[in-house]
């Protein structure tokens, strides 16, 4: 009896351990693969060319700057939309809405989060972009702005869901403490509840941005796919192309092992570094705040 229990224990712990290690292993393998396919770029394309402003692979122009700026402008636009809307909605659901409204809204928002991005892209092409073209009097409705709007829409449910959980976890006693001091509802939210939920809200923002920066399908469908350097404010209303869309659109047609192929992997590496940077920045902010509290408490 005891023996068989021990044996089961052994197998189960080993299985769990294997699952844990394999997750790390897979990530490592993916990373190694990315490096192996991406690093040869440096031998084949000069740095000058790589950081030029012209992306025209057929004629051996591999300037990735337009793609980076394209990704940045669309993501920043999306963040500017998703963060205030998302946090606002989270505050409404958690702090202001009556209970029955909350019980309808919360699942609804989470349902929206599961909407396939290609469906949103579809809506973008058929509804949003013709509307924007007429409304803003643009030559085409397929612009960075269109992409930002849609990406913002994709990121909002993520932000709302995580931020609402964080706000909900703030002890009720904090709010009562503020109310008892004569704080208005808004003062309580802005000066007590939000700061108390700070790290969770920050996580929500980062996850939202992460969702937006990695999104491929929607941006490929609605941003017009023109690899033009986007540095001016006006480029928000002209077509751009993001890094993700470039990889998705060209990877299928590229000759295996060619320079173009390597550059596409290199773009993947850049993308990886950017999202790694965002994550590290986010967690170090949270970490620092925690560290400080711990140091003083000890």
């Amino acid at each position, binding site marked *: 009896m005891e023996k068989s229990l021990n044996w089961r224990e052994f197998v189960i712990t080993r299985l769990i351990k294997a699952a844990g290690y394999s997750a790390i292993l897979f990530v490592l393998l993916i990373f190694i693969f990315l490096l192996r396919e991406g690093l040869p770029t440096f031998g084949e394309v000069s740095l000058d060319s790589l950081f030029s402003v012209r992306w025209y692979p057929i004629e051996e122009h591999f300037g990735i700057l337009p793609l980076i700026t394209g990704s940045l402008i669309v993501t920043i636009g999306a963040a500017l939309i998703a963060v205030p809307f998302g946090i606002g909605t989270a505050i409404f659901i958690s702090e202001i809405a009556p209970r029955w409204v909350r019980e309808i809204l919360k699942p609804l928002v989470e349902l929206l989060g599961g909407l396939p991005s290609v469906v949103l892209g579809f809506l973008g092409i058929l509804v949003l972009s013709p509307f924007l073209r007429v409304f803003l009097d643009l030559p085409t409705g397929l612009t960075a702005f269109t992409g930002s709007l849609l990406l913002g829409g994709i990121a909002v449910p993520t932000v709302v869901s995580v931020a609402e959980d964080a706000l909900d976890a703030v*002890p009720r*006693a*904090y*709010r*009562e*403490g*503020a*109310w*008892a*001091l*004569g*704080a*208005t509802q808004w*003062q309580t939210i802005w*000066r*007590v509840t939000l*700061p*108390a939920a700070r790290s969770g809200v920050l996580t929500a923002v980062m996850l939202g941005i992460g969702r937006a920066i990695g999104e491929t399908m929607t941006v490929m469908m609605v941003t017009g796919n023109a690899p033009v350097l986007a540095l001016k404010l006006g480029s928000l209303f002209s077509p751009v192309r993001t890094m993700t869309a470039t990889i998705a659109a060209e990877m299928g047609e590229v000759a295996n092992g060619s320079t173009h192929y390597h550059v596409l992997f290199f773009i993947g590496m850049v993308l990886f570094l950017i999202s790694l940077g965002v994550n590290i920045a986010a967690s170090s902010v949270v970490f620092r705040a925690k560290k400080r*509290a711990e140091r*003083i*408490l000890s």
Partner: protein
Amino acid sequence: MNKILIESLSLQYSDGTESLRNVSMEIPANAITVLFGPAGGGKSTLLRCLNRLNDLADVQVVEGKVLIDGENILAPQTDVIALRRKVGMVFARPVVLPMSIRANLTYGLELAGEKRRSKLDEAVERSLRLAALWDEVKDRLDDPAIALSGGQQQRLCLARSLALQPEIILLDEPTSGLDPISTGKVEAALQELKKDYTIVLVPHSVQQAARTADYAAFFLQGELIEYGEGSVIFTAPKEKRTEDYITGRFG
């Protein structure tokens, strides 16, 4: 002189439980009035009526009147924010806000629109001295308030409501989580404070009720059983139920 006048107050929560039944009492100024009795008797509910903190809970029916300085604060046109500045509250678990000691104290004043640094500093020192905390924290006002011990946190919360210069202080089991020494400090502070304030206290034990009460009200299942001077209630109660509770026969 009566600061607070409660007239046939009844209150029912929306899940049907009745919390206060036809309570009438007069709470005098410059004294400690203690509301005591077993849990679920409506003490906290009554306390929370006095600064309308119940507005935010699921309350279904409120009947009767609560007059503070002759004004019915349960009337819908009452300025609740101003009321809460006039009626401070300290909770059972110290709720220090996630900021520095100083910011905790100036918080209420800043909400009320006070910006002058000198006024704020003055309020910090005055309220900390009143709450008998000044000597312990005067050198580290900018540390996070979370780093204080439980007893210090509770006195910080007391100081925080005092910083607003309220007229009435409500305390809901303010020493339930504290050691005897800290409890003694809080009680001593209250004895000092009653010279200038009206204090309504829900104690966490009968002993504390007996120690602190100038006036005492015994609550049982939403009803006010007996109300009178503390020295009378705790030595010669009129009601059998009060006596049973005080002598520890139930509760």
